[in-house]
């Protein structure tokens, strides 16, 4: 598989044999689920036969493996090498990171004008995941706490925002911090029981927590509207100017005297998201260099050593959970106001998995990596919307392939929080 290529010194016979085994296994896999198909009919279930599929699977895998074996390192390795040569991946040091960071920010500012409103819309979605990924990178990346239930805080933020906005009529800029605060308290609530847990156990408990929140959302009809969710969430306004059709002074188009276009609201949402993301990113950059940021990383490295130096693991872990949760809360608020409608369906475990993949694939220390990973995992599949069914299949496959290719993340050099000697050019 990717990453383990031996030079192509294998003889043809061995290549043939390996391909044969691969093909045979493919046939075995294909027989039950591809070869037979369950067919629903009035009389109940029956079977349909698709022998060609099985043959196709077997032959296809056989050929692919044969080609892979024969060409071995020459083609695939060459592709791997040339991709790795791209400067981004090679010896990615602080200078490059800064330059690319500013280039990306510049690009982000002009993005809506480079394409149509669909591009801006999709980019907004990517930005939401960048915010989520940045928040989770505090918990998983810096503090090393494996949280598989991050979506719970996302949901708490969204629902809290919706309920506050609809019940009290507060504006976006009031509801947002309140939702974040509420999510942060949930973070602390989650943090307490898991303080002594390590690694995979922590993962499962947080996963359970995410599911508990989702079940509560579905069943607590009075508060959350149950499976139907909450509708009619007020959309964001620009200092009170609404983005709707109309010529009056209360609408954006009317105020500026320009013809109405649905693109206005989408662009506005995009820049709103961009602002939030920039604040998030700068905040996290900053806090990494403060004692608490170093403490998170130290805790991840060796908790016992931390205790022996007087660091209190409890407060450090809880602060990581709380801060990470608050960013998810902000993202959730934005999500709620962008959609105008939320339901428990948007907050399943898959979301947690996607956000985690964004963080891990991005290389947990790297914010730029998170941007790239978000584009890869969220932006690209949007283009596959038409092939809805295969979208998730492709997503899962990409996840596996990328993590096998680069287990340490796409960009994984860790930036120092404090340097003694000024950085020499490398």
């Amino acid at each position, binding site marked *: 598989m990717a990453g383990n290529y031996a030079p192509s010194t294998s003889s043809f016979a061995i290549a043939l044999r390996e391909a044969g085994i691969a093909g045979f296994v493919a046939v075995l896999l294909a027989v039950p*689920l591809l070869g037979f198909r369950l067919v629903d009919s009035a009389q109940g279930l029956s079977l349909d036969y698709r022998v060609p599929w099985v043959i196709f699977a077997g032959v296809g895998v056989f050929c692919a493996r044969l080609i892979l074996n024969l060409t071995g390192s020459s083609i695939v390795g060459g592709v791997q090498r040339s991709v790795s040569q791209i400067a981004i991946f090679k010896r990615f040091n602080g200078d490059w990171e800064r330059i690319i960071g500013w280039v990306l920010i510049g690009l982000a500012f002009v993005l809506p004008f480079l394409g149509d409103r669909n591009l801006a819309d999709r980019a907004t979605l990517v930005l939401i995941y960048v915010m989520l990924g940045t928040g989770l990178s505090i918990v998983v990346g810096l503090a090393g706490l494996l949280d598989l239930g991050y979506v719970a805080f996302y949901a708490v933020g969204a629902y809290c925002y919706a309920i506050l906005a609809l019940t009290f009529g507060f504006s976006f800029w009031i509801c947002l911090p309140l939702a974040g605060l509420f999510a942060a308290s949930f973070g602390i609530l989650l943090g307490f029981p898991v303080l002594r847990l390590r690694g995979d156990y922590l993962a499962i408990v947080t996963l*359970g927590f995410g599911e508990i929140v989702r079940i509560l959302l579905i069943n607590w009809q009075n508060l959350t509207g149950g499976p139907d969710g909450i509708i009619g969430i007020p959309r964001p306004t620009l200092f009170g100017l609404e983005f709707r059709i109309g010529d009056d002074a209360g609408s954006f188009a009317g105020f500026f005297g320009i013809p109405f276009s649905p693109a206005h609201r989408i662009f506005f949402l995009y820049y709103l998201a961009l602002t939030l993301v920039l604040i998030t990113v700068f905040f996290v950059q900053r806090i990494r260099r403060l004692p608490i940021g170093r403490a998170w990383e130290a805790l991840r490295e060796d908790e016992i050593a931390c205790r022996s130096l007087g660091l209190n693991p409890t407060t450090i872990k809880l602060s990581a959970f709380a801060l990470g949760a608050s960013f998810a809360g902000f993202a959730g608020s934005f999500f709620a106001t962008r959609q105008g409608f939320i339901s428990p369906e948007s907050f399943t475990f898959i979301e947690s998995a996607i956000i985690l993949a964004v963080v891990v694939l991005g290389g947990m220390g790297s914010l730029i990596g998170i941007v790239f990973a978000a584009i890869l995992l969220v932006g690209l599949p949007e283009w596959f919307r038409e092939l809805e069914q295969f979208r*998730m299949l492709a997503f899962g496959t990409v996840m596996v392939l990328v993590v096998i290719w680069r287990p340490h993340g796409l960009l994984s050099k860790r930036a120092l929080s404090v340097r003694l000697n000024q950085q020499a050019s490398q």
Partner: protein
Amino acid sequence: MDYFLQQLVNGISLGAIYGLIAIGYTMVYGIIGMINFAHGDIYMIGAFVSLIGFLLMNVLGITYIPLAILCVLVFAMAFTAVYGWTVERLAYRPLRGAPRLAPLISAIGASIVLQNFVQISQGARVKPMQPIFQGTFSVSTGGNFDITISYLQVIVVVLTVLLMLAFTFLITCTSFGRAQRATEQDRMMASLLGVNVDRTISGTFVMGASLAAVAGFMVTLYYGVIDFYIGFLAGIKAFTAAVLGGIGSIPGAMLGGLLIGLIEAMWSAYFSTAYKDVAVFAVLVLVLIFRPSGLLGRPEVEKV
């Protein structure tokens, strides 16, 4: 009281299913220290393959029930085992030396692939099946509630016990089992002593997958309705069971499974069905706070 006993019976059957899946989790965790996130979906595949197997029996005209059951079991276990083997080979083996999170991401990706593969190849809708077993027998008809144990439930329990015995024998008395236990303790040393670690690990996955297939077989018979998503929830609960019983301990996994099944049955019966999963997770949290090594597990002591 009778109602309680009935729920007890229900809970035990459900628990047996969770226990079989939990064993797969615990074995894999014991030997390579990772949670096989895709294991729940292997169970789901086992359920689908069993369903297909039953329909195949109809088509082939095999109606003698014990024979049909045997054939479907073998069919399901064999093909599901291949899936288990393939997932390990493709998604986990390349990441053996990688940082801890990498195999987890790979596992999540594999889980997504499996779910969607089944969804695409078999259709997204729920699959109902005509019940194969009609027939229950009464245990007691006194009181205001008849306690019934269906033949199905008997089969489930008997099958589970037989499998437990077989696998315990396998682990303790065969050379493969020895190799497995050695690899669990110290992988490097085991390989230095001539144990084929790759094959042992693959074998563990295959064993786990076949047990999950049996669980899938049972659930197909028991509930008669399956869909491509059952793996996820069952997987989490089964992992909870494995942790509850003490991760790394096979009897612990079965014990944990039974407890989880009982908790779920009792909670549904006496409180509400909607929150039964919450009850199970709450159990997980409490166990991990107060007894992280589980009921039958050995506490891990970190040497300072």
